[in-house]
């Protein structure tokens, strides 16, 4: 744990963490089904949003 770890190296470590989570996720859940992908914009889609939000219990 040293201050000698530069910002670029730390930034790449953060990207590596995200990549690892994504790889783990895709290994678990598989790739999303593009045929059930929502339209580009929720507004005007005629459907209620299905996403989850921090305010949900």
């Amino acid at each position, binding site marked *: 744990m040293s201050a000698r770890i530069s910002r670029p190296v730390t930034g790449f470590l953060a990207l590596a*963490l995200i990549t690892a989570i994504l790889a783990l996720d*895709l290994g*678990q859940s598989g790739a999303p089904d593009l045929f059930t992908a929502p339209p580009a914009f929720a507004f005007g889609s005629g459907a209620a*949003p299905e*996403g989850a939000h921090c*305010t949900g*219990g």
Partner: protein
Amino acid sequence: MFLQRATVLLIVLGFTLFAFVMAGPRAGLLVLVGLGFGLVLEGLRFGFAGPWRMIVTDRDGRGLLAQLIAIALVAVVAFPLMAGSGGELVPAHAPVGIGMILGAFVFGAAMQLVMGCGSGTLVNAGSGNLVGLIALAGFIAGSFVGTLHLGWWSSLGSLPVISAQGSFGETGGLVLTLAGLAIVAVIAFLRSAPGKRIPPRRLWIAAVLIAALALANLVIAGQPWGIVYGLGLWGAKIAQAGGADLASTAFWAAEGNATRLAESILTDVTSLTNIGLLIGAFAVMRWRADPGAQTQALTLASYGAVLLAALVLGYSARMAFGCNVGAFFSGISTGSLHGWVWLVAAFAGSILGIKLRPVLLRPRISGGAYA
């Protein structure tokens, strides 16, 4: 320098294209929105935790005023947009409760210890801040553990969901929200020292851009900008990979959450914007000729304190139905009473966190506390 910037562009465009190809156009657009947040937050140094500290310690209200301007801009557009959307766009409403208030207070304190809030932790980690990277790991774990206990905290007692538009109508609710923001702005203005009252041009531009991105988030996703849900989901994915049976927990067995857990995070709104935000902050740091110095080295115990505070940060954000983004920014800008209560409780906690900071964070070189 050319190679460095070409690498940045490759990462930015590569992940956007990856999300678009893997999960469809909405996923690609949400990554772009997240990238925008990262570019603005890091590039124009627009933050949440820092300004809340500055107004207390330096009587500098410029950053807080910029936050209020951004929230007001979102509210002016979001209120009528949601009202006319026929349910396609939903607000960030949550109940006010004992657990929620306690969570907001603790979050406010913890965010001063890890030197970043929900969005700030992602920005800090992406921009190469070591404390931010440690905090991100803690935040992910904490927000996941928080989901396991949310039912208990909610059972301590809460009001029904109360919103400005629900109580006073769309126009009345918007006027009330803007009036509330104006009152807070006046308090911040009066508290600030002369010369530290009017946001500089940089923060005006950032406030407008953040508002535009938040509205883009709403129109594309159908819901306001959020952070915490995605981080908790990442923690749940890791726990599940480690053998945890989350189907037996109330939170992850609930219909919407079970779907998110079963499907890829590339289908989760807040995960996509979170990843984009982190990459955006990384891009700004790598684009600069000088990425800047690493944060001051801390003692090992202080790094431990950061990790613990980040765990608490994530956990309390879950208790509070959101962080500075989901509860404060998006809650208030879409009319939720809980956003206002969150503001008061978290600000009180933030004052405590500012006092704890020099006690818990010690630089490795003796002779002072962490600035």
